[in-house]
């Protein structure tokens, strides 16, 4: 389970400034449970975007956006529509956003922040990882999270340590996250995203679980399981 919180609509409108049409994706997994990515929320989000002058060419709620094979198979019928829009708005956790960005060679915008559960993470089958930082900035990193993909967790661009696209920490097995980000943005003709991205300074306090989450069902289940030990 990953808990998400919808970003303010103003922040989202900043992401899509200069764009005309979008495709909106929701997730019927954790995001639906969080009240951010289920069908009612996606309909509402689409409405909010259209009210602000954006064309929502289509929307879809996928069972688990973190599963790339599923994303691919469910969205094949929509491929043409998605091809025609400026970007995809993804209303789910950081993993789902990254999975969609891997499947479609398109600009993706995260509609949510993923809230820290303090270690109670879900399981997923892909290479995408979410640090639950509570300040999703996948919008300016081509849908690749440098907090999890970069050995130094660099948020303002690459260090000088990558050689032939490989990370200096594990050159045999790890690609430089910023090299992949650069490559994707260049291929999409969107390098200006990097150039105009504002200075990033993470608020690490937001990587702790928020107090209001401690009383929720997610935590309650865990506590009950702990109490239900077989005597």
């Amino acid at each position, binding site marked *: 389970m990953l808990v998400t919180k919808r970003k303010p609509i103003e922040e989202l409108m900043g992401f899509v400034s200069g764009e005309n049409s979008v495709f909106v994706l929701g997730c019927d997994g954790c995001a639906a449970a969080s009240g951010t990515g289920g069908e009612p929320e996606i309909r509402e989000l689409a409405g909010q975007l259209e009210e602000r002058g954006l064309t929502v060419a289509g929307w879809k709620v996928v069972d688990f956006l973190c599963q790339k094979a599923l994303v691919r198979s469910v969205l094949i019928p929509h491929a043409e529509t998605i091809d025609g829009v400026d970007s995809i708005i993804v209303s789910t956790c950081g993993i789902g956003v990254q999975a969609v960005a891997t499947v479609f060679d398109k600009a993706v915008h995260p509609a949510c922040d993923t809230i820290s559960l303090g270690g109670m993470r879900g399981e997923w089958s892909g290479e995408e990882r979410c640090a639950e930082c509570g300040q999703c900035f996948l919008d300016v990193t081509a849908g690749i999270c440098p907090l999890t993909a970069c050995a*130094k967790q660099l948020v303002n661009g*690459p260090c000088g340590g990558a*050689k032939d696209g490989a990370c200096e*920490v594990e050159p045999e097995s790890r690609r430089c996250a910023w090299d992949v980000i650069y490559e994707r943005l260049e291929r999409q003709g969107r390098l200006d995203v990097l150039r105009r991205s504002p*200075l990033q300074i993470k608020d690490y306090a937001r990587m702790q679980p928020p107090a209001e989450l401690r009383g929720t069902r997610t935590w309650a289940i865990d506590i009950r399981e702990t109490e239900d030990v077989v005597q």
Partner: protein
Amino acid sequence: MKLTDLFADGRFVITSEVAPPKGTDVGEMIENAEALKTRVSAINITDQQSSVMRLGSLAASRMLKSRGIEPIFQLTCRDRNRIALQSDLLSAWSLGIENVLCLTGDHVSLGDFPEAKPVFDLDSVSLLATATHLNEGKDLGGNELEGHPDFCLGAVVTPGADPVEPQLIKMEKKIVAGAGFFQTQAVFDAEAFAHFMERARPLGVPVMAGIILLKSPGMARFMNANVAGVHVPDALIDKMAATSKEDRPATSIAIAARLIREVKEVCQGVHIMPLGWEARVPAVLEAAGV
């Protein structure tokens, strides 16, 4: 003395660097710095380079300052969070240090404590922005300071990175954040460097080409295989290989001097990394005519 004042005077600025010892015996470091003193404008003091634990760059910077040598305090984000970085910057200013080179730092996995927790709370860009805040009398959180520094801030760039575009984008971000000069990763190909400078020149901030003294063909091959953004052309490796061991220093000096003469046409200074050959730096500069 601020490095940026020298550039403002239109001078071709020369800096070099020394490394603090692993231990408390600073004799050799001081000796190396003294050997460079009369020929360079300032000396970088590395901050536990390659993530190898050593005596601190702040203390060593102060030691040089006391001997009339202008230090460039290297500060990395590897071992300090934003509280420690800001505190060390205030300490540095209170100790008379005026030039700071702001770096992200190598990953801990490269050093002698690979099991350490890497910090990287800030990075080179946000560290520069933080130091700029301090210069303006406020900390990163916007709190007023009672008395504030006025640092000359420097940064680094790798002209030989492939692709170089992300480096240029980050260079721009560093300038916006307050970088007043750049020192580069080692340059061995003057022509490739000139191409880089065509892209960097419009940014309007002085660039100092990094010069490493080649000690042997093996060292050149090692750097080509292992050091990101460094490429020693085959012609230079062949030249070193064709030289007898006794004559290598002379060949190395000639190669470095020629490089300096060539890059002098396109940049605003050189930063010489002697890596143990500090005593030979004056001869290099002599031969380069700078």
